[in-house]
């Protein structure tokens, strides 16, 4: 580069002024707001956050405490516990039943939700999470015949494509839970609704049965059922023909994999019947379990949860406590900062800046 001796010799350029434009943008003089952290802004901020957070936290905490929740572990680790026998003998296809008795000390009002909870169940394992074919579940015909490779090793069975394919579908939770109210020795079965337990978007958009002539069984004719399943997908709910195939709500709920290895999933709704009596009265109940789902081999746990609901969802004191804690810390820090400001605040004067 060291050899150009003469400046640019394009003559035309010489006469044109190369003066840069005098615009605010080019001269970096754009008008701007310049906030700075001063005692005047920071201290009030801390106090305000403190004052806002503590009431929110208390509100959340109280709401959470008002929610009634009952949880019972029916895994049956102890051999002499109600489901102990089933737990140790049960496999996918053998039917074993057991009954667990429990007592609600308080009545549950409003709609009550019945969940099953699993622990130590890694629904969030990467290989598990991706082991599904969303096109197939969305009713795509070609995917029905030729499921995605992600479904391996639950893709084909005896040369026929599995529908629904993949490890998630294969491990569908298939215990049947029935709840009885023990009213002075008589069992009264509690009405459990299975309609409306899945997200609307899942039920109506994400999961769709393949369309075609005839009923579901003909559509799914050339497919195999998942290995663990006792029944094919079009026969999941014998009571409601519209709840079969990929749009079976229990199936949809299961397919929405959990974020954490301990999770609960909505099993049934117990709708409020009338405004006078609580939905679930105080008293003794029996949970009748058709025990199909083995979890003991990997040290898993199964729970049944009954819960009421508030505007902030189910019982979860965490958020309330967190708000109260953060709010208190902020308030405390605000006080500390105020003291610091009074003691040292003068340092920030600009006395040593010459004019």
């Amino acid at each position, binding site marked *: 580069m060291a050899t150009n001796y003469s400046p640019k010799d394009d003559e035309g350029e010489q006469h044109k002024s190369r003066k840069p434009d005098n615009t605010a943008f080019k001269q970096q003089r754009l008008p701007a707001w310049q906030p700075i952290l001063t*005692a005047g802004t920071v201290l009030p901020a801390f106090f305000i956050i403190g004052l806002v957070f503590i009431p929110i936290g208390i509100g959340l905490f109280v709401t959470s405490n008002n929610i009634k929740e009952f949880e019972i572990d029916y895994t049956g680790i102890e051999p002499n516990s109600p489901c102990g026998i089933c737990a140790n003998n049960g496999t996918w296809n053998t039917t074993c039943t057991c009954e667990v008795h429990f007592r609600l000390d308080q009545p549950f009002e409003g709609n009550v939700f019945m969940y099953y909870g699993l622990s130590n169940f890694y629904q969030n394992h990467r290989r598990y999470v991706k082991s599904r074919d969303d096109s197939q579940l969305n009713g795509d015909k070609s995917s029905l015949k030729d499921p995605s490779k992600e479904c391996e090793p639950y893709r084909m069975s005896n040369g026929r494509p599995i529908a629904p394919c993949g490890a998630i579908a294969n*491990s569908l939770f298939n215990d049947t839970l029935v709840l009885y109210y023990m009213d002075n020795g008589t069992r009264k079965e509690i009405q459990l609704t299975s309609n409306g337990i899945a997200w609307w978007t899942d039920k109506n958009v994400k999961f769709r049965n393949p369309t075609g002539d005839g009923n579901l069984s003909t559509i799914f004719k050339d497919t195999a059922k998942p290995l663990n399943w006792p029944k094919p997908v079009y026969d999941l709910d014998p009571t409601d023909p519209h709840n079969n195939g990929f749009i079976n709500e229990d199936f949809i709920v299961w397919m*929405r994999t959990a974020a954490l290895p301990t*999770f609960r999933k909505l099993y049934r709704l117990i709708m409020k019947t009338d405004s006078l009596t609580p939905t679930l009265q105080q008293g003794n109940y029996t949970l009748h379990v058709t025990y199909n789902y083995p979890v003991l081999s990997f040290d898993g746990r199964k729970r049944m949860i009954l819960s009421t609901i508030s505007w902030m969802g189910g019982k979860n004191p965490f958020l309330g406590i967190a708000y109260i804690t953060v709010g208190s810390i902020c308030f405390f820090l605000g006080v500390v900062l105020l003291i610091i400001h009074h003691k040292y605040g003068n340092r920030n004067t600009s006395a040593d800046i010459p004019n």
Partner: protein
Amino acid sequence: MPLFDSDCTRSKHIEQERHLRANDRDFNQKFYYVDNQIKTSKYNVFTFLPINLFEQFQRIANAYFLFLLILQLIPQVSSLSWYTTVVPLMLVLIITAVKDAIDDYHRYQSDNQVNNREVMILINGKLRKEKWMHVQVGDIIKMENNHFVTADLLLLSSSEPYGLLYIETAELDGETNLKVKQALTVTSDMGENTQALADFDGEVRCEAPNNRLDKFRGALTYKENKYSLDNEKILLRGCTLRNTEWCYGLVIFAGQDTKLMQNSGLSAFKRTNIDRLMNVLVLWIFGFLVMMCTVLAIGNSVWESYKGYYFQVYLPWIHKPPNSSFSGFLMFWSYVIILNTVVPISLYVSIEVIRLGSSFYIDWDTKMYYPKKNTPALARTTTLTEELGQIQYIFSDKTGTLTQNIMIFNKCTINGKMYGHACDFSGQRADITAKTEKVDFAFNSMADPKFVFYDHSLMEAVKICDPKVHEFFRLLSLCHTVMSEEKQKGLLVYQAQSPDEGALVTAARNFGFVFRSRTPETITIVEMGETKIYELLSILDFDNVRKRMSVIVRHPDKKLYLYCKGADTIVFERLNSSSQQLRDITTSHLDEFAGDGLRTLALAYKELDEESFDNWQKRYQEASIALENRDEQLSELYEEIEKDLKLLGATAVEDKLQDGVPQTIQTLSKANIKIWVLTGDKQETAVNIGYACNMLHEDMNKIFIIEGSSAEEVRVELRKASATMKERDQAEDEVISIKQPKKQFFLPEEHVNGEYGLVINGDTLAHALEDLEVEFLKAACLCKTVICCRATPLQKAQVVELVKKYKKAITLAIGDGANDVSMIKAAHIGVGISGEEGTQAVLSSDFSFAQFRYLQRLLLVHGRWSYLRMCRFLRYFFYKNFAFTFVHFWYGFFCGFSAQTVYDEWFITLYNLVYTSLPVLAMSLFEQDVNDRWSMAYPQLYEPGQFNLYFSKLAFVECIIHGVYSSLVLFFIPYGALFEAERDDGKTVSDYQSFALIAQTCLLVAVTLQIALDTTYWTAINHFFIWGSLAVYFAITFTMYSNGMYLMFPTSFPFIGTARNALNQPHVWLTIFLTAVMCVLPVILVRYLKGELKPTFSNKLRCRICQMKMIPPKQAISRLKRPSVRRSAYAFSHQRGFGALITSGKNMRIRTVNLIPSKTGASSNVDKQK
């Protein structure tokens, strides 16, 4: 980019000696000498893609991403889709490639322009016009006046008698005075005879190409005679032919082999301090990444054997062999993919964009635009801007950089009366403004129209024939070695050996004493319109020791006079006692001149009587032919006659500084920047300028002048200097100097008691740089000002390298000539003054502008902002990526270490690219803590950059800690809030997709708030980008999670409905709010406390601005007070003057003068004519 490479196949060999034959291309071809084509571009059309890609993948980050891409293609390992890596990688590669291509095209164009210049080559006895690039070694070429020398040539003949030739070497060493070269008689006899030249078949054997500008060894064999060749006969590429109609030369070195090109060195790729730090940090990050992945991989092995093995009921192992350690191994790579975001690929692109932005700001700055030359500032390298905010040492050239290289006759004192101040009507001194009336020289038809003088009283004194005033100007018109040229009647052009002399003779010319022409024994003066011929009897030429020159002339009235001008101290010693009173007055005037930074010369004369002169002249003749001690004898004789002088007065010449130089230097030194002047010029001139621009001043405790002819002497001097400067730690000093450095180490900053200056010249510098490096540097760094004079281009670069090597400091070199190129390239940042001395310096510089004073703005405003912005950017960028990535790490503990991502893959792809890029980019383009006027008013604001206060390894660790904290909040708050959580309609939201959505929303809100906190200068664009990014996030999220997208691409957008179902929950929003507050509050706390307890200068200033709503101060244009100790100086040439040439008549055009040609050349035979 050229279309093809022309010489890629040429074999490289190490040349020991150059052997060539004139006019014999076939013979010379055998040696494969390079031709005169130069090539600085790297690519051509075909090689661009492969070479550029190869270069790009040499960058550690790019190579890493290529590796990641390959990993992602392995299905067992792939934890992310390929597009998450490909999209950013492609973007990076394309942007960089386009930029490289444009840069290279510019280089190609400038090469092309030079290569296509035309020159006459003698081929087969005929002169042909050819392009420069076709010139080959051994060719004979013809050049004309004012042409650039095409290659390194052996001068054969010229239009001037005796094969003399004048060149200007400004491009090479920055000196604008003319230099004489002379051809061998045997070749100069050929003259313009093309036939003779074509038949010339001399063979040259000489040294191999090298970079020594001042030495040449070789021999010419012609007609069986051997002639030795030295530097006197060589014309170097880069010089300009002056005052010579034509010349012929034999090409010895061409193209890349020329000394100029050898001196310019390889244009090394410059990296900034931050770049180097980044490379270290990237390695750290790699280490960190490997550590995290190892932890997670081990975790996976343990998990798989304790849990996964049993969980096979629902999730069978598919990897082969089915064991847990192999799974751990695979998971290691999967985590390398997932956690790749800690290695910031988009960082590099963003940095480039930010630097490009800052470069544009520099180009656009109207305050660095010089209207007189219509030149805006130009950032030629766009990758160095933030380093402008970290400069600690500035190395400046003198001529053309600090000074305008214009000498102006500014004031004078004649017979005790001072002239030169502009006066108003009442006779009071007034400042010179544009309105001040200039002296009208219309009476004098031969006046130089460019000469300007404001004091009318001097003109009047001339007109009333004040004898002293006349004598004064007579002296100026007689006592010099200037050559005149009268191309048209009355249009005189002076060729002065030094610009000072030119200025003085021009002054005399305008005041009616026109030096018109000279012959070896006469000088013709037009005195007030009347032509007079003075007989020149002797020139007592100047040199560095004498510091004066005298002429002895015989007036037309036959009286003998000696006229002397010289440094005041020297001249005053030789005055007649009658001048005592005048001397005192003159001294006080000289003091005043010195106070204005003018260069002064005292003038004196005396009348000689015929008898004593005859006597003296006889002895002089004897002495000048003496074989022994000739110089000593001569100088004794000079002493003898130059005494009892009568003082006339003194002149004051202004070596015109560029505008605002002293102020700029003062401001920069307030910013703790050390300024060293490295000049090829003479010591006196350099020191003078040092005073003039306030680098040296009388308040300094001491100014050391280091001179020594051997290493030992220099060592002693340097020791003495250092010892004076820090009397206490002398003992410790000795120890260090004995231990020569074995490995790289950095000299610590040392404490000095007082202010010192150091001046060192080229020869001494050579010793100092050879084996006294450390000692020299230690001494130099203790001084406030360092001036190196007579430094060669290479030495300049060596000094820069020396500071770079032993000081942990960022250096900047500023210069304007070809002699500064090596220094500009050596320094971290090179700045070229696009001005007088050609454009070479500009072409190899990183930044260029027209005036030295713009340096202040470049550093204090642009540099400081760039540095601040870059550091804020880096801190934020690392933070946001750590916060993003560590969440995956925590999640690993809850998902069986299965490399499950926390976020949606689309979010991972778009996070750096879309959601968080613009706000931080806006911050790094618009951020300013205080505006430009405050930055200039308080140079102290510059200091944080010099000490790397805004970004360092420590700051990086802070970023990591901050990131880890945020990621903990960002993972565990949603974890706690969503653990077995339900919606307000009883359906669960604790599923993976909702969790991903909430975690990513929390993250995005938190990092957006963080950038909002980091931004202190909120322009409309910042608002738009920051809030816009959040809005865009929600818009894109809702779109991607919509029914339509899912129905079109079910496998790509499986998150359908998640946004709708999760984000309509109040407790989800409360969670997001909580995490945001928890991420931001500690930062506010820490920043507030820092500002409260340990406020930085910038904090204080901002507070003050804020409190008082102060209007920035006007840039104070204070007239700098200069100490008034006079420094008389002559712009002595380092060479002996032209005196001998003049009196021998060799360089006279009048060929009728009958002279015996002398083979020995420049031997002084002053009295030959007598």
